[in-house]
């Protein structure tokens, strides 16, 4: 701790934090003087991006060790901050609170899984990677499972897994950047993407891991300030305590009371009855197929004719014409659509499930299935965390193994700071919505509802319709996207707009820091492992760096292009990245350290079979990939496919290793070396 490098870093980042807070104060003052909203959004987005770019330029380097592993001299505390920023993605920052709001107890699987995974990193993988002391994850696996081809096959498999996992992840981050920039500054989504891309590139292009590390530390500070400010404010408002982690138990009790009240409220019951009635109607129509399909089509066409005759307004005509155009093309399609509509209406007719109740289900069996899925998801997220290449490479950057272990501790502490307040935020916002918004007159709706309902007209973040026409908002009349919980928090809490700008900056920092780490991991896997280690081992270090940087540019452009297509499927696959990473890499990494007998053939078999089982399960059970939930094993959701992939991988490594020759002397020596301090 007395090291001058560490003290200098503390001073720099202390100044930086003070500067950022001063910037906040200045913008708050300007807002008070009447600066418009858009300008505040612009200011936050551009000032922070410029800041990160500045750090990136200052940390430029042309040294191989600096570029790949930041010179292996990052002190544990700063490595912890950088890893935490690397770890917390756009999804964590923007969507996690919303997820917990929607799912209640069952959403906590993400909190448990994403923190418990650090135990696995600390005990099983991180410190040993540091002792090994090379550059990438494929490096480790190739050296450990050398075999006759000096590890080329293992390296290739590891590269494929790394690139596949990291690429889906990075596309989601860049998508997140586009979303944040467009929501807060009003510029077009694709411009937002390329803006974010430019800033990611400035950070990683010139300085590689070194620049990424120092910007990630800066981004972590922004993320924490941005998240904690509204949570603390809401906590003071609802519980009187400034530390939400301690004080929201009273809020939770208040919420439970309010939930019971709403479940008895006659107006709520009325709205739910309306939904039940609609569900019955859809059921009846589906039962009367195919006759009901012809009838419906005829009615829709008649409606257009009638409107035309009566000289209805253009908007009405358009709506009627759209109804005809969107009418199911065949009776079979109609059945699927109507049954879906029935289920959607039934879901909205259901009473509120208590927020803190674990595994709510109508029957004991349904509840058991939810519990099993919860456990499976927790396990997959933990093992996936411990196998994500962009997190693991950060442990190469510590100067020694003691520091690497401490970095895991710091990382977990910094991650916890934020994760422990996410469930608090969900509860506090829920109280506000259930307590104040529900029961308001439609004529007196707060401004934020209209603002966020109009920001994205195609898929509005929030929609409230007066279904029973009593002029008062009922909970059952609201539809919300999870993301709104965080995005609108400052307005729900009645905070000035400057806090919304701060949230934009925080979300941007979360997305950019993760994208930085991921892009670097992908391009390093391609340049270091494919080009240098497999194709041209004689390349000079200067040329290696040039190729790394070129590949970084190419990968970033491809990722931005894919993100600009708004691929819904890829985004929903991000959760699956954890299962894929764990199935392909986790068994090989762990046994590589703890079971000296594991050999080349075993590792190849384990990686291939684990990955294959995971992909097979996802393809056969995931509706978006053409599977159906009927083929699930033990009713486990596709997102948790890792619970089948990982055991398969372990089993394959053990069986195949025992059936083939023991690893050669080189591998043995390596195992023994990494096991010693």
């Amino acid at each position, binding site marked *: 701790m007395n090291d001058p490098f560490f003290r200098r870093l503390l001073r720099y980042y202390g100044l930086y934090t003070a500067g950022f807070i001063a910037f906040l104060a200045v913008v708050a003052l300007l807002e008070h003087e009447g600066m418009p909203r858009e300008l505040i959004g612009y200011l936050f987005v551009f000032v922070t991006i410029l800041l990160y770019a500045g750090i990136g330029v200052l940390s430029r380097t042309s040294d191989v060790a600096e570029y790949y592993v930041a010179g292996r001299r990052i002190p544990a505390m700063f490595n912890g901050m950088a890893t935490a920023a690397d770890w917390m993605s756009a999804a964590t920052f923007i969507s996690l609170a919303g997820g917990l709001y929607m799912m209640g*107890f069952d959403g*906590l*699987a993400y*909190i*448990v899984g994403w*923190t*418990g995974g*650090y*135990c696995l990193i*600390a*005990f*099983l993988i991180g*410190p040993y990677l540091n*002792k090994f002391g090379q550059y990438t994850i494929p490096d480790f696996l190739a050296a450990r499972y050398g075999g006759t081809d000096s590890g080329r096959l293992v390296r290739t498999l590891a590269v494929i897994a790394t690139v596949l996992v990291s690429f889906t992840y990075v596309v989601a981050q860049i998508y997140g950047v586009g979303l944040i920039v467009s929501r807060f500054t009003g510029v077009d989504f694709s411009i937002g993407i390329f803006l974010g891309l430019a800033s990611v590139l400035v950070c990683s292009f010139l300085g590689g891991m070194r620049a990424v590390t120092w910007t990630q530390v800066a981004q972590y500070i922004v993320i924490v300030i941005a998240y904690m400010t509204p949570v603390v404010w809401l906590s003071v408002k609802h519980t009187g305590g400034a530390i939400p*982690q301690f004080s929201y*138990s*009273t809020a*939770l*009790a208040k919420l439970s009371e309010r939930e019971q009240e709403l479940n008895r409220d006659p107006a709520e019951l009325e709205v739910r009855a309306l939904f039940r009635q609609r569900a019955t109607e859809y059921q009846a129509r589906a039962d009367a197929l195919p006759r009901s399909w012809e009838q419906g089509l005829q009615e829709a066409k008649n409606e257009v004719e009638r409107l035309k005759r009566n000289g209805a307004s253009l908007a009405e005509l358009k709506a009627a014409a759209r109804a005809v155009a969107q009418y199911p093309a065949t009776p079979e399609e109609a059945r699927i659509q109507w049954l879906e509509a029935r289920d959607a209406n039934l879901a909205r007719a259901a009473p509120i499930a208590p927020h*803190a*109740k*674990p*595994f709510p289900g109508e029957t004991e069996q349904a*509840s058991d299935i939810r*519990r099993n899925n*919860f*456990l499976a998801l*927790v396990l997959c997220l933990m093992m996936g965390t411990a196998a994500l290449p962009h997190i693991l490479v950060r442990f190469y950057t510590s100067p*020694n*193994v*003691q520091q690497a*272990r*401490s970095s*895991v*501790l710091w990382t*977990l*502490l910094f991650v*916890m700071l934020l*994760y*422990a307040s996410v*469930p*608090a935020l969900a509860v506090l916002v829920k109280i506000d919505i259930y307590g104040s918004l529900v029961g308001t007159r439609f004529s007196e709706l707060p401004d934020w509802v209209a603002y966020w309902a109009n920001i994205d007209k195609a898929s509005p973040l929030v929609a409230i319709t007066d279904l029973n026409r009593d002029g008062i908002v009922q909970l059952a009349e609201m539809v919300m996207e999870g993301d709104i919980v965080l995005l609108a928090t400052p307005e729900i809490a009645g905070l000035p707009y400057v806090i919304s700008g701060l949230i934009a900056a925080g979300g941007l920092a979360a997305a950019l820091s993760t994208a930085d780490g991921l892009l670097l991991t992908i391009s390093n896997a391609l340049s270091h492992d494919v080009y240098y280690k497999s194709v041209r081992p004689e390349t000079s270090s200067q040329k290696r760096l040039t190729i790394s940087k070129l590949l970084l540019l190419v990968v970033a452009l491809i990722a931005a292009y894919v993100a600009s297509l708004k691929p819904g499927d890829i985004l929903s696959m991000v959760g699956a990245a954890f299962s894929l990473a764990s199935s392909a890499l986790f068994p090989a990494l762990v046994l590589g350290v*703890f079971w000296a007998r594991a050999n080349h053939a075993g590792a190849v078999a384990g990686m291939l079979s684990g990955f294959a089982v995971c992909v097979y399960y996802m393809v056969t059970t995931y509706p978006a990939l053409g599977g159906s939930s009927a083929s699930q094993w033990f009713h486990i959701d596709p997102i948790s496919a890792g619970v089948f992939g990982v055991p398969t991988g372990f089993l394959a490594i053990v069986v195949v290793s025992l059936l083939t020759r023991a690893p050669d002397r080189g591998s043995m020596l390596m195992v*023994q*070396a990494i*096991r*010693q*301090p």
Partner: protein
Amino acid sequence: MDSARHRNDPDSPRGRRYWRATRRLTAGLLLAWFVATFGVLFFARELSEITLFGWPFSFYMAAQGLTLFYLLLVAVYVVLMRIFDHAMEEDAHE
């Protein structure tokens, strides 16, 4: 740095002692990690009847208790491993 690494002969008795201690510690902490996580979560429905400082126990554990426990486990690991490392260094100087 490399010479320091190879100074410790893994086949020596003290090298083996070090690795045995590491393995035991790892196994013990993993067991604690597993039992705490899946014990609490498996019985979450039953445990939510209990309240702790005004929280339903299982909600508290899932929302922050387990995370705190993980932090504790990693802290124990960091401290004990440092002690093992020092013991190894001292052995080497004898």
